[in-house]
């Protein structure tokens, strides 16, 4: 509801932007359609890119950004929102846009690191002093522990949470598919509230005081702690987690139509420059650039990770786990 309103407002602002762009022909505009927690990141990145572009080419580039749930944003692009670039929470959402022919199928090979300029991982946010003694994934299914996560059916972030838990169980000594299923089913028995999105879960945990552990993106957990009180929450990094890769892509159909390919590609390439990598680190995303990584080494503890390749890629993970009748539905959550 709130995001809809925001999008409506944004839509009208965009029209103003289009009108302004028409008036001054030399200026370019880009629309970056992104997901929820990147709001602050892309505000800074876009400002830095605009300054760089002005210096190099002399043109003024205005970058508008739209933020919302990752899947919802992908749907908007499919339904005709003219995004020059998409920067979403998981490759599956971009795959779906590519399936509709808006993006070339090889999009993930076009930029370094699977088209992922920065990464994150899934960590635990617990209350001050860690009263339930949560150290690793297996502590989450101890009696009396309540876990807050959004619904994997509606939230991209929640799918990362789910797969991280699955991968943990799979990688324990003697772990196999059946053990992983059992662990994840037990985990969801400890979930009292399933919000529709990551921000909703953060609110439920932080403001409403529900649950003992919040499963969250590392960037979201760090931000929540920063914004809502370092003295109230602690971050627990599990023994192993998933490497969350939020990818980026140029929307070919749109940039070819609008003639904005050059600037759109430059914008995404800019994400890999030391300057943008530094900004990513500042906003709690793990940068690839060594200098930026070194600078923020204290923020990001070392964590063993596995990737989505463990699940045969997003398309396969989506079909096996999150589609109707998939493993998540078979777990009998709430029954």
């Amino acid at each position, binding site marked *: *509801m*709130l995001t809809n*309103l925001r999008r409506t407002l944004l839509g009208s602002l965009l029209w103003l932007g289009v009108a302004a762009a028409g008036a001054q022909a030399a200026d370019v505009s880009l629309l970056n359609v992104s997901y929820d927690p990147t709001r602050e990141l892309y505000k800074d990145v876009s400002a830095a890119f605009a300054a760089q572009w002005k210096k190099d080419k002399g043109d003024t580039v205005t970058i508008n950004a739209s933020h919302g*749930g990752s*899947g*919802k944003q*992908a*749907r908007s692009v*499919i339904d005709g929102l003219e995004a020059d670039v998409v920067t979403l929470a998981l490759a599956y959402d971009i795959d*779906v846009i590519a399936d509709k022919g808006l993006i070339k199928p090889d999009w993930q090979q076009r930029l370094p690191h699977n088209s992922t300029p920065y990464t994150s991982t899934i960590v635990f946010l617990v209350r001050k002093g860690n009263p339930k003694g949560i150290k690793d994934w297996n502590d989450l299914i101890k009696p009396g522990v309540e876990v807050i996560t959004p*619904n994997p*059916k*509606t939230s991209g972030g929640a799918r990362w949470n789910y797969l991280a838990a699955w991968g943990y169980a799979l990688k324990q000594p003697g772990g196999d598919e059946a053990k992983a299923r059992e662990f994840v089913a037990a985990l969801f028995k400890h*979930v*009292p*509230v*399933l*919000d*529709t999105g990551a921000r*909703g879960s953060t609110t*439920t945990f932080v*403001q*409403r*005081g*529900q649950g003992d552990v919040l499963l969250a993106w590392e960037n979201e957990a760090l931000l929540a702690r920063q914004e809502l009180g370092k003295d109230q929450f602690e971050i627990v990094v599990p023994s192993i987690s998933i490497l969350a890769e939020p990818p980026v892509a140029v929307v070919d159909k749109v940039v070819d139509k609008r003639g904005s390919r050059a600037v759109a590609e430059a914008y995404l390439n800019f994400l890999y420059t030391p300057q943008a990598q530094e900004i990513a680190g500042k906003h709690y995303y793990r940068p690839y650039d060594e200098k930026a990584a070194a600078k923020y080494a204290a923020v990001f503890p070392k964590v063993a990770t596995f990737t989505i390749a463990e699940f045969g890629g997003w398309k396969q993970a989506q079909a096996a786990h*999150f*589609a*109707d009748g998939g493993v998540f*539905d078979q777990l009998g*959550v*709430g*029954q």
Partner: protein
Amino acid sequence: MARRVLPGFGLSLGYTLAYLGLIVLLPLAALAVKASGIGAAGLWKIVSAPPVFAALRLSFGAALLSAVINAAVGLLVAWVLVRYRFPGRRLIDALVDLPFALPTAVAGIALTALYAPNGWVGSWLAPFGIKVAFTPLGVLIAMIFVGFPFVVRTLQPVLEALDRDIEEAATSLGASRLQTFVRVLFPLLLPALLTGFALALARAVGEYGSVIFIAGNIPMKSEILPLVIVKQLEQFKYADAAAVGVIMLVLSFLLLLAISLLQRWSRRWAER
């Protein structure tokens, strides 16, 4: 054809039909077209899935209950506002409309903050083991909130127009106060009460914004039908989402039709 007393029938009817078609029927038709690929068997498969059926039961069950509560309390509030004069009456009268004006998300967040176990109301209930937020009870509370104004606003004008002579006549003919209310007043109020009930019910069934924050959204327990639609959309399954939409639409339509029949019957009963 004989000339009508009122001119402009053809023109106004044409306008009405075109407008209704454009504003109401066109989107509904689009929904039906989108869902039509599924077929009756597919439709049944979707509804009979346990989580969807549970959501359907919760959505319609809680909406019916909330409408019943709103009808009872709304009648009382309308009665007090129309029949008595007291300081602050106009203020209370204006307050009734607030659930209309408030964005539903704001209402949902406010209700959740109040009824969460650490909220003002929730913290009083928690020691007794009563949980409101994140349970079906929370869904009911949110639905009562958004549906409340309908009953009051449909009853008020009818109550105001009610002739006091008939009450006096009833009393002078020896009816007790209870008899006057049950046999004289209530039958006259019933059609308007049913209208308010139907409106509150329809609003509650379709409500998403305020309910979603307080519901907890656990499948089989506290998941409402509109969320099932959102979940289908998140999987890019437009046809399935439209199918659930059509099911909601048909059920709502049948309920409203039943209420409208009940209303006709009650009017005849009142005119007896």
